[in-house]
């Protein structure tokens, strides 16, 4: 596989780095400590075309590619895990399914404002009793006259507190399978924050990515017009799974970025910090730790970039799937992030455990990448499922 | 007047100093340049001429230029020369050069001089060397200069024996020194940054001897394309780094808490009787205003005591402070280049070292 970045990708990477260094990094500590949602950064990213990187300019996007998007999440996460996930959830979980499944009217209504950052997007699948499991879904949508009426709740919804547009998965139909058992069929809907009967609950108090707004969504007779059905009725679960395939590339890129950021901090620290009269970089334990972490991070990077390029092929019209690549990338990148940040804290010693240095924040931020948008166990189910098919 | 030809080098004689005035007051850079120009004129055995442009200037000020070395002052007095405009000043200075043909013209590298110098050089078709830190015409003196400031094996190097102006300046952000010559064209023009050259002792008798020559000015409003709407002095008193006895400068090392770092520097400057300076990193970040900047692109200082707090010592910074009498640096990186240039160094966190330093000095001075 050719990993040579195109001229445009190299240029974008340079721009992301400058932006991250100047605009994102200075806020990262505060975003974490005060659970501050970086809305000013989101507005800046919107202005620069970062909120719709890989969608064509015709629909309001930036005309870039999926790898460039993954690199954006990577570079933001390198300095601030929260900013990385805000970008990822918005793009992969809201703008992408509308772009891939929306009617021309839906695309025209939502994509320009999502891509410009005027509107922020979110995605609601997980419920108190169900994660990546269609049959466990309790939220229901009923046709009432010209409307759909939704009832139920969703939890752990990234961006919820600040999002304007939500993709909501709800049960719309029940059929009997071959053996006569009831099967729930889901559909996807576009719900706006201002729709009647729609409420955003209290934000979660989280271990990491503390500035990202993670809330419950409550729908009590939430009434939306008929034309908010996204994609085919009854195929909402498949839509959600396909959406998560894309989302996992974003989270894998986030994990990769967090790991790289931890290495950046650690390399600088070990050159400065002295023990027994020498910089700790001079000790072979430090050198070997760094070497192994770097090799693992680069390995994860190849998987993440490969998955992004595979999705690009699909975007270009090739009949390819990238579920396995995305799952592999997320599995390995998230484990690498957790492992690397933990080992980096160790190299920092006592200082690493304090909030004077960003490394403990990175360790806390890394953990979530093994959990959301499908836990590592779910990724392994996806990968082995394809192997044993 | 015969056609002016900047390549007819033999026709040019004398050293000129453009004496900048603002609001009628000659700027100190003028005295520094006259003092330097005096040495060059002596070496060449020619006249040193101060050129001052203005409107109804105090004649005492004009005459006083002689006290800093000028044998003669050319004074262009015209209402349109009251305040600096590129067009009027360029025209008058170029007209004078074309008429009187000096071999050397020195201009202060101030925001005005750096506007005027290049415009004149382009019009006169000659070279201009910016921001010089050392000037020589005499080859022996130049060799002696190189002996103390370079690694060049001077005795085994050939030098052309002529009196071309050898203009030495830092290049590439101060990573390199370059001596520039302008052998084929005249006048040889050079700008010099304020604070680089030392002002000679004022010589009362020389001022008396100095001849002030009012020159005719052919200038009309049509010559000036830019209109001055207002001139405003900064309300905030700018820090006088150049004249300071003690400078306490802060660098990137304060980034953990810039406000506290600056407060500490101010307190230390207070007890030492000095002012606060900064490296480019600090002024670029906006933690201190640009007038605090010491270095190649900032100010050149040579105080009695220079304290560098959290400054790594990039050559660009060293270029502005390495001639200080005593340099004390505090840096937590023991490999920081600043220690190479320091008289005394302490490895440590400035946020810990400086409060201790302040306390000790206060105790010593009975201020505690």
């Amino acid at each position, binding site marked *: 596989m050719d990993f040579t970045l195109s*001229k*445009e990708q190299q*240029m974008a990477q340079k*721009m992301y780095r*400058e932006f991250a260094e100047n605009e994102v990094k200075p806020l990262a500590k505060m975003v974490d400590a005060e659970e501050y949602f970086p809305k000013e950064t989101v507005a800046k990213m919107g*202005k*620069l*075309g970062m909120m719709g990187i890989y969608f064509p300019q015709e629909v309001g996007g*930036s*005309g870039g590619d999926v790898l460039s998007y993954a690199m954006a999440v990577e570079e933001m996460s390198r300095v601030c895990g929260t900013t990385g996930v805000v970008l990822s959830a918005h793009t992969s979980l809201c703008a992408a399914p509308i772009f891939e499944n929306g009617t021309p009217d839906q695309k025209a209504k939502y994509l320009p404002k999502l891509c410009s950052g005027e509107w922020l997007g979110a995605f609601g699948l997980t419920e108190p009793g169900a994660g990546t499991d269609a049959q466990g879904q309790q939220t229901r949508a009923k046709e009432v006259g010209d409307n759909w009426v939704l009832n139920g709740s969703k939890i752990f919804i990234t961006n919820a507190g600040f999002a304007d547009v939500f993709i909501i998965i709800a049960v719309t139909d029940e059929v009997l399978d071959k053996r006569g058992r009831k099967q729930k069929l889901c559909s996807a809907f576009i719900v706006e924050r201002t729709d009647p009967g729609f409420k955003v609950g209290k934000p979660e108090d989280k271990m990491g990515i503390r500035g990202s707004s993670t809330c419950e969504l409550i729908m009590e007779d939430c009434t939306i017009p008929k034309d908010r059905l996204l994609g085919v009725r009854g195929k909402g679960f498949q839509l959600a799974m396909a959406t998560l395939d894309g989302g996992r590339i974003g989270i894998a890129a986030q994990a990769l970025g967090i790991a790289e950021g931890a290495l950046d901090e650690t390399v600088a620290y070990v050159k400065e910090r002295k023990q027994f009269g020498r910089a700790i970089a001079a000790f072979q334990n430090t050198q070997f730790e760094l070497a192994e972490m770097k090799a693992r991070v680069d390995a994860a990077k190849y998987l993440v970039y490969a998955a992004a390029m595979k999705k690009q092929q699909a975007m270009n019209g090739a009949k390819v799937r990238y579920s396995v690549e995305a799952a592999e990338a997320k599995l390995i990148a998230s484990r690498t992030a957790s492992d690397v940040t933990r080992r980096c804290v160790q190299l920092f010693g006592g200082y690493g455990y304090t909030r004077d240095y960003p490394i403990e924040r990175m360790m806390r931020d890394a953990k979530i990448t093994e959990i959301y948008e499908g836990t590592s166990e779910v990724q392994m189910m996806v990968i082995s499922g394809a192997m044993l098919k | 007047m015969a056609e002016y030809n900047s390549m007819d080098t033999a026709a040019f004689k004398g050293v000129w100093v453009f004496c900048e005035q603002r609001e009628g007051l000659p700027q100190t850079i003028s005295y520094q340049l006259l003092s330097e120009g005096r040495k060059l004129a002596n070496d060449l055995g020619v006249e040193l001429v101060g050129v001052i442009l203005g409107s109804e200037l105090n004649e005492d000020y004009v005459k006083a230029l002689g006290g800093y070395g000028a044998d003669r002052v050319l004074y262009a007095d015209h209402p349109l020369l009251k*305040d600096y405009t590129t067009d009027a000043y360029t025209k008058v200075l170029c007209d004078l050069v074309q008429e009187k043909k000096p071999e050397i013209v020195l201009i202060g590298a101030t*925001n*005005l001089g*750096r*506007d005027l110098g*290049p*415009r004149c*050089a*382009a*019009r006169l*078709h*000659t070279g201009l060397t*910016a*921001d010089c830190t050392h000037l020589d015409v005499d080859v022996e003196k130049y060799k002696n200069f190189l002996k103390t*400031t*370079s690694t060049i094996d001077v005795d085994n190097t050939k030098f052309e024996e002529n009196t071309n102006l050898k203009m030495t300046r*830092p290049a*590439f*952000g*101060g*990573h*390199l*020194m370059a*001596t520039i*010559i302008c052998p084929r064209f005249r006048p040889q023009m050079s700008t010099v940054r304020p604070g680089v050259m030392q002002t000679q002792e004022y010589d009362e008798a020389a001022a008396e001897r100095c001849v002030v020559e009012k020159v005719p000015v052919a200038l009309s409003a049509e010559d000036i*394309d*830019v209109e*001055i*709407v207002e*001139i*405003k*002095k*900064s309300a905030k008193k700018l820090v006088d780094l150049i004249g300071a006895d003690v400078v306490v400068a802060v660098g990137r090392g304060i980034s953990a808490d810039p406000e506290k770092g600056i407060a500490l520097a101010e307190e230390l400057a207070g007890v030492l009787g000095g002012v606060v300076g900064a490296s480019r990193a600090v002024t670029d970040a906006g933690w201190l205003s640009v007038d605090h900047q010491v270095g*190649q692109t900032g100010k050149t200082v040579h105080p009695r*005591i220079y304290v560098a707090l959290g400054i790594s010592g990039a*050559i*660009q910074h060293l*270029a502005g402070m*390495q001639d200080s009498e*005593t*340099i004390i640096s505090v840096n937590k990186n023991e490999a920081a280049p600043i*220690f190479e240039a320091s*008289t*005394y*160094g*302490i490895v440590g966190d400035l946020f810990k070292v400086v409060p201790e*330093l302040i306390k*000790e000095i206060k105790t*010593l*001075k009975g201020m505690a």
Partner: protein
Amino acid sequence: MKAIVCVKQVPDTQGKVAVKPDGTMDRSKMATITNPDDLNALEAALKLKDETGCEVVVVTMGPPPAEGMLRELMARGADRGVLVSGREFGGSDTFATSQILAAAVNKIGVGPEDVVFCGRQAIDGDTAQVGPQIAEKLHLPQVTYAANIKKEGNTLTVKRMLEDGYMTLKVNTPCLITCIKELNEPRYMSIPGIYSCYAKPLEVYDYEALKDDPLIETDTIGLKGSPTNVYKSFSPPVKGAGMMVESVGQLVGILNDKHLI
């Protein structure tokens, strides 16, 4: 109406500096950046474009790889680029450089409403000469050290910084302005800009393209046309390292003994 922006690619002297055995800087080993002040000049031009919809042309003199910089400037919003490149132009000092750039700007064409923007100075030379010299060659009025620019019709009101304050000046187009950091905050490249910059026009002006301009003579450009040349270059001396002291107490003691405090 056009805004023409003169830019320069410079070695990043803030980063690591590579030095050749002879003491001169090894540019090939150093990262290059767009000269910082030139980004402020571009931003001033782009602001004018935001207000008036004018065209923004970026022009640089340099070797062929300088195209990469021009593309980045187009990704920030410039409409087209001109790369002035030719062996004949090599070795130019500021005088000769301004001859060539002025000829290039002439070829682009300065209309009655146009503004030429330059950065105040380049970080590799710090001379601040090329801007005013281009203005002189083009017979344009100049304002240097611009910290604020307002345009009404064909009149620009410019705040020009002095060391101890500022001047407010009025100047009519066409004119040349040199810009400083305080003027504005340069915008980033945008993603749509990045993905469309290679489709924007880029012209290369070589010696052939410019030779008919009266400013271009064999004795006004390149090494031969440069009034100044380097006589000697050398590394500044490194002072012997001073004394490292162990404690604040020791330092204060020494300073006191030497009557420094």
